[in-house]
Structure formats: C-alpha cells, structure tokens
C-alpha cells in the first residue's frame, strides 16, 4: 500500500502528477475555492481565492476593492465638515470613533482646544462605539462556530447603544456625531439616563455571554490554537488594536498618545499570549469591560461647562443667534457654503479605532478642502496577513480566523 505524504510541504511536489502505481489513481491536484465576494461568512464584500488540498488550505489570495468609494479623492473637493460624513462609512460598526478622529485631526491643525465636557462626552461615545464594535465581532464569531445564542443576546444590548447614539445625534449607524470644535449639542438628561441604564443592564448580559462561551468545550476546540501569529510577525504585518494585543504587544493609542482626556481615566490594556483566535476573542471581551469602566468614570465625573470650543469659523453658531446676530449669520453662511480657508499645515493624528490605530494624514495647502487626505485604515493593513495565518489550516478554521480578525469591508476599501 502506498501511503501518501499529506503534509503541506509535500504539496508543492504533489502538484505535478506522479506516475500512477497500482490500480488506484489519486487525483493529485489542488482545488480552487472562491470564498466570497458574497459569502455569509465574510461579513462584507471581499474575495479570498483559496487553493485547497482536500480540506487543507495550501495558499490564499485576497481580492479587495468591491466597495471602494474613493473617499480620499472626494475629500479633496469637500470642506472639512463635509468629510466627516465620509468617515462614518469606513468602520460602520463604530462610526463615532471615526467621526471624532477626524474632528480631532482638524482641531489639531487649527490649534483648537476643546473644553473638558466635550472631551468627556466624546470619550463616552467612543467607548460605547468600541463596545458595540467588539460585540459584533465576538457575537458573530459565535455564529460562525454555530452558536447563535450569544449573538442574539448581545445584539439586544447593541441596540441599546444605538438608542443612545440616536438620543445624542439623531442617527444610528452613520452617526456623523459631533462637530469640529466640540459636540453639536449637550448630552440631554434622557441620554444620560440611557447611558446609566446601559451601564446597569449590560454587565449581566455580558457575564451570561462569557459564561456561555469563554470555557465552552466545543467553542474552545474550534478556536484555541487556530490562526496564531507571533508578536514579531504581527508587528511586521502592521497589526494594531486588539489583534496585536492578542499577540502580546501592549500597544494602545489611548495610552501611548492620549487624546481627548484619556489620561484622566483608569483602565487596563488586556494582552494575549499566542495571538490565536481564542486570545483575540478574550482580548475583545476584556476590552468591553474596560470600555465600560471608562464610560462609568466619564459619566460620573462629567465636568460642567461649555460643550464646544470657541472656534467661530468652524463651529456653527446656535440657530437663535443666526436670526438676530450679524456675525453669527456671516459665520453660519461661510461655514455652510464651505468658504473657510484652513491654515497651511501637515498633520497626522491617530485614534484607537475598533480595530486598531485609525490614522488621518492631512495636508492642507491653505485651501478650503484638504490638499491630500489619507486614512490609515487598520483593517486594510492587517488583512494582508490572512493567507499566512490560514495556511495549513482547514476551511472552517479560515472562516473563524477571518471572523476574529474583524475585517470590516468599509474600512478595508475606503
């Protein structure tokens, strides 16, 4: 009997058909499998062309760009405040982080100092956004391994977060929250009530979710030691955010380069060890708890005072003022018509997005729109590592790895 060497290393040699010996002939060829572009497990539109040897993945290649919307080009014709609506659509699972990231970039260019109250409100909304982002990722990881329950429980809580968004800015998914220079309105008593209610109601659900998954034998068998990546490789591949922390590197923009008063809050940075899917899952779970801690601290210590900075050329004046005050009318007109010239400058600002370092590289030549705007999109950079991570695993593992990387198509393509 001829025993076949099924190891991945031998696959290359197996590509060329050997002369058959004996009556049984094996088909020594690889199967090409299209995973995507529209596959329920990709959770977005991107394609993976996998070379399969039976159930094993030999190599993979990604095709992306299916929802490329040329945000960088569009930005070159838009006044600054209109660019924010574009950032919503990048990581649409945590839009407020993108919104405020862009606001802070412009504020850095202008040299505007935002009052504490606005910074705290931003922190609250950004951390809620991070929670909802991680809830989606971890909930869907459950679905991809065949457990729908956790997803269902968590999405009810995500709905609560969206209710808070709605209360704060009127929108749910593409929030366009805040303004350059602060928030568009103060937190209403109803919003504060909803945030407090969320802080109270969410932990039991999260604990239940964790008790369902964290030590679940079936779940662990599926994800432990699947898709591991070493810290060194992860850094080389430009990983940031939870995926990098799962590999054991404690890099978090909120701590390294604090923005929007993050230095005022006490929270921990969870890190994993092996960088496998289980670590990524656990890091995200722990980050949800830490984000909740930050929201708690921020809502308890919410400072009094104005919720927007004195930046009349960028921050829309209150509507009542516009009706009776000449200056307010002029500024209102200039802002809405996009007739404000920005100062010349070159600025890079990064925030900790749901998936990692979300950077904005803005070059202004003194015009009304950016001369060049580039988004550093964490998904786009770390998704390159996917073929390396899934090489030698099975198809079902590849699905789980992709899911735990939390690749958001909107952010991937911009």
């Amino acid at each position, binding site marked *: 009997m001829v025993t076949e060497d099924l190891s991945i290393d031998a696959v290359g040699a197996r590509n060329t058909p050997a002369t058959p010996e004996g009556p049984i002939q094996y088909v020594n060829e690889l199967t090409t499998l299209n995973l995507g572009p529209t596959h329920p497990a990709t959770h977005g539109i991107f394609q993976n062309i996998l070379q399969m040897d039976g159930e094993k993945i030999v190599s993979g290649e990604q095709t992306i*760009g299916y929802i490329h919307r040329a945000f960088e080009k*569009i930005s070159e014709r838009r006044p600054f405040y209109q660019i924010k609506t574009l950032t919503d659509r990048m990581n649409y699972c945590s839009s407020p982080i993108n919104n405020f990231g862009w606001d802070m970039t412009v504020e*850095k260019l202008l040299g505007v100092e935002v009052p504490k109250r606005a910074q705290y409100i931003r922190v609250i909304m950004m951390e809620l956004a991070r929670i909802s982002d991680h809830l989606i990722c971890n909930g869907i990881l459950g679905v991809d391994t065949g457990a729908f329950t956790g997803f269902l429980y968590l999405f009810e809580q995500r709905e609560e977060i969206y209710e808070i968004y709605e209360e704060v800015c009127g929108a749910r998914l593409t929030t366009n929250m805040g303004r350059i220079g602060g928030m568009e309105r103060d937190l209403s008593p109803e919003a504060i009530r909803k945030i407090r209610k969320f802080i109270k109601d969410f932990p039991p659900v999260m604990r239940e979710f964790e008790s369902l998954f964290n030590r679940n034998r079936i779940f662990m068998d599926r994800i432990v030691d699947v898709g591991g990546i070493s810290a060194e490789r992860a850094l080389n591949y430009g990983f940031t955010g939870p995926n990098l922390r799962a590999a054991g590197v404690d890099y978090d923009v909120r701590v390294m*380069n604090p923005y929007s008063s993050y230095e005022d809050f006490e929270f921990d940075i969870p890190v994993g060890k092996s960088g496998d899917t289980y670590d990524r899952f656990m890091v995200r779970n722990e980050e949800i708890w830490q984000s909740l801690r930050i929201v708690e601290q921020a809502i308890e210590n919410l400072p009094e005072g104005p919720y927007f900075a004195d930046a009349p050329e960028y921050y829309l004046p209150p509507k009542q003022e516009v009706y009776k005050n000449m200056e307010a009318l002029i500024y209102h007109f200039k802002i809405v018509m996009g007739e404000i*010239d920005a100062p010349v400058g070159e600025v890079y600002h990064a925030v900790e997005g749901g998936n990692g370092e979300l950077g904005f590289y803005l*070059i202004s030549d003194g015009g*009304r729109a950016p001369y060049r705007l580039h988004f550093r999109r964490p998904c786009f950079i770390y998704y390159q590592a996917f073929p390396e991570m899934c090489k030698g695993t099975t198809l079902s593992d590849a699905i789980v790895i992709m899911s735990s990387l939390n690749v958001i198509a909107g952010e991937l393509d911009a």
Partner: protein
Amino acid sequence: MLTNEAVAQDIIGRFGESVSDFDDPFDLLTLTVSREQLIPLLQYLRDHKTFQIGFLTDLTGVHYPDSPGREFCVVYHLHSLINNYRIRLKVFVAEDDIHIPTATVIYESANWMERETFDFFGIIFDGHPKLERILNMDEMDYFPMRKQYPLEDGTREDKIDALFGR
C-alpha cells in the same frame, strides 16, 4: 525619551547629504531622504540600538504637479513602539522617472500600502512582489489620485473651482 533634535543629528551624522528638509510640524520630525538611501535609512532606524523605530504605521503618496522634478512624494510614517516616538520620511521622485525601491524587504505591511500607492498614483515600487492594482479595477488605464483628474465634471459651470476653493 527621544528628542527630535537628537534623532535629526544622528541621522545627519550617518546619512549626511542624502537627508534634507528637516522640519517638525506638530512635533513630528519630518525629513526628506534621497531615493537611493531610503532602504538603508529604514534599516538603520529599525536596527538602531536606542531608536528602534521598527513599525511602519503608514505609507502613502502625494502628487505635486507644480514642482518640476519633484512631482510625486511617497510619505512613510514610522513609529518606535518602545520609545513611543514617531517620524515621517518623504521621498520625492520625478514624473519621468517614477521609480522607488520597495519597503517590503523590511516591512511586510508595506505590500498592500505600496500597491495602493501604485494604484492611485502610478508610483512604481521596484522589487515589489506583486505590483498590481488593489482597490480599482484592473482595466483602469489612469491613476485617479493624480491632480489632473478633477472629481467633478469639468464642463459644469455651477460648480466652478473658485466656488469650492480650488
């Protein structure tokens, strides 16, 4: 804690003529390096004992059609996670010699970022393992982020550049 001054002095001491235009907008050390010395500089910054600037945060291109001989700029944002220090490198290339060595030899993450830069600006990264379009369709025969391609329909008069600040 690294200071911009110290890092700049060290780089000048090592690379002399090849580095120029030192600046620190918003406290981020920015410098221009010649195309030939780019890879040695990236290598030097990564392997330096104290700097350890070994994380490629971002790589992108910029088009300056009005500066002859320096039409295209490739911008590298590097980060030292150990010292929490960022640096920005720029390489200028001319339109008729639009080549630049690839950084994929040092950073795996440069792969797609260089492809994206090629896709939008047509900058050719010599030695790149697979320099193909990544976000746009393969059939596209121009590089859309170049400034000569206006976003709006040029024949419309209600949207002239003057109204929009350009």
